[in-house]
């Protein structure tokens, strides 16, 4: 019911006062019929008018023609005016306390017709516009939610894919360590468990702090260091003001894995992977760099699913295409991602 009559019941009450005032002025000024008569006349008019107006708003709420709405409201107003005049006329004739104003009925008839017709028209158009706007707003809100839903689904499709070979190779390393360095094996199992817990069952549309994300990356890199017996070196430098910056969950992990793939899996020598973070104009910037083997395919070309999915996710989340930048200088591959901070 709330939505039906211009949103609120208060509006009807307000409208009635206005009409009462209008009728009172009209009749009092015109015929000098006496305060009591004019007041009664206006009151009766308003009591008749109100249900008709409510009826009109109901009608417009449930049915609005797509075409010729102007004619529709005009016709409706004419019909309701006729109905109103008919009812008022018969009330004047049959109600005892209205007998006095009966005399002036014919004289005021033209005003009754004209004034009421205008009132119905004005009211009709206001109602009409109000409902049309409301419908549009609802449609827009609906579109927004379905768009967001589609975007969320798309983002979850780009979900971080855990590399099974990483698990099996790590287990193989632990298997070897159990014989030679049982303490180290225990450490590895805890690292691997913590890392696995971190990457599984994540709400992919949420954000986390940089500190949190880096802690998982550190576990991952620690495991790789054990697997490759310290052929891997890492340098992680985070500016203190970036630690609590917000970042989409697991957005860095595929980039670090990419750095490991080209930096560690595809090269022979000692490698160093560097991660830096800093704030710039209310944006968090994270840079990840790794050396690669120039004699093999350019890393840029063979970026694969990792980097492209990160790009896509950032585009969908922030509606910007300039958040991922890649550079290759000599044998160092660097990826820089920018995360807008709210």
């Amino acid at each position: 019911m709330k939505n039906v009559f211009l949103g609120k019941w208060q509006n009807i009450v307000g409208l009635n006062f206005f009409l009462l005032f209008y009728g009172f002025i009209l009749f009092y000024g015109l015929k000098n019929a006496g305060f009591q008569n004019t007041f009664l006349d206006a009151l009766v008019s308003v009591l008749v008018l109100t249900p008709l107006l409510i009826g009109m708003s109901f009608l417009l709420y449930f049915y609005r023609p797509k075409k010729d709405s102007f004619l529709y409201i005009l016709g409706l107003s004419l019909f309701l005016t006729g109905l109103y005049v008919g009812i008022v006329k018969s009330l004047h004739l049959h109600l005892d306390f209205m007998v006095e104003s009966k005399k002036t009925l014919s004289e005021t008839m033209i005003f009754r017709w004209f004034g009421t017709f205008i009132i119905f028209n004005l009211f009709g158009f206001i109602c009409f516009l109000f409902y049309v706007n409301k419908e549009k707003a609802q449609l827009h809100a609906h579109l927004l939610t379905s768009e967001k839903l589609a975007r969320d689904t798309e983002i979850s499709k780009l979900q971080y894919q855990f590399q099974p070979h990483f698990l099996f190779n790590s287990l193989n390393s632990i298997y070897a360590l159990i014989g030679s360095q049982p303490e180290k094996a225990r450490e590895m199992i805890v690292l691997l468990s913590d890392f696995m817990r971190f990457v599984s069952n994540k709400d992919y549309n949420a954000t986390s702090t940089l500190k949190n994300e880096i802690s998982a990356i550190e576990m991952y890199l620690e495991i790789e260091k054990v697997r490759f017996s310290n052929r891997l070196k890492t340098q992680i430098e985070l500016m203190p003001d970036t630690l609590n910056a917000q970042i989409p969950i697991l957005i860095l992990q595929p980039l670090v894995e990419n750095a490991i793939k080209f930096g560690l899996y595809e090269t022979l020598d000692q490698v160093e992977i560097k991660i830096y973070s800093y704030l710039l104009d209310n944006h968090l910037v994270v840079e990840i760099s790794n050396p690669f083997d120039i004699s093999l395919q350019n890393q840029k070309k063979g970026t694969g699913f990792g980097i492209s999915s990160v790009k896509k996710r950032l585009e969908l989340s922030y509606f910007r295409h300039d958040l991922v930048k890649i550079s290759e200088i000599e044998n160092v591959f660097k990826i820089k991602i920018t995360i807008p901070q709210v």
Partner: protein
Amino acid sequence: MIKVVLIDDEPLALQILKEYLTENSDFIIIGEAHNGFDGYKLIQTEKPDLIFLDVQMPKLSGFEMLELLDQKPSVIFTTAFDQYAVKAFEYYAIDYLLKPIAKNRFQTAISKFKNAKTLNLKSETDSESITYDIPRDRIVIKESGKLEIIYFDKICFFEANDDYINVYTASKMYKKKITLSKIEQFLNPTKFIKTHRSYILNLDYLKNIEPYEKENFVAVLITNHKVQISKAGYIKLKDALGI
């Protein structure tokens, strides 16, 4: 004594293999390598009877390394990737061990090797029988003792030459022992078009097509190489270019 070479890029993975092998007194480890390049050199010089070979390694994968060897030792693959198993057996692998490797599973592989040896089964790769089910983007070529890795997008065209093919890049020509129809199997068919019985062309290097003799055409590449086009090849080429 059976001479063994171990090839794996992870030291801890090698450690397990060494541990297991010391319990088999008739095996002797004569060397270990951490990538395909070093593995290749080691096998050429040491001529082992058996190798334990990882698949995913820097520079040269286990499969690429095997293809380069003229005389192949017996191979037991050790890897975390189970999707390579089918391919491994096409290389007449003795066995295929998945990491982490259990001791009794390792011993089974060892007995398989011993059985094969007593039956005198030679582990030889029949390159014609290999199907390239794993997508590739490069080939490895032996060039006067050195190994060259050439990515497909650097290759202008291939030319058949008996049992060999000539591989042309913008600057150089290489020879590889493989047939043209074999190499065709692992090329991207939208990019590489077989324009002639003896030629496969990389469309990225095509400059124009010129008439040649009566009804024939010849493709001119941006490197100014000329590649023959047969009638059937002309239709394929037109299809691929959408004209």
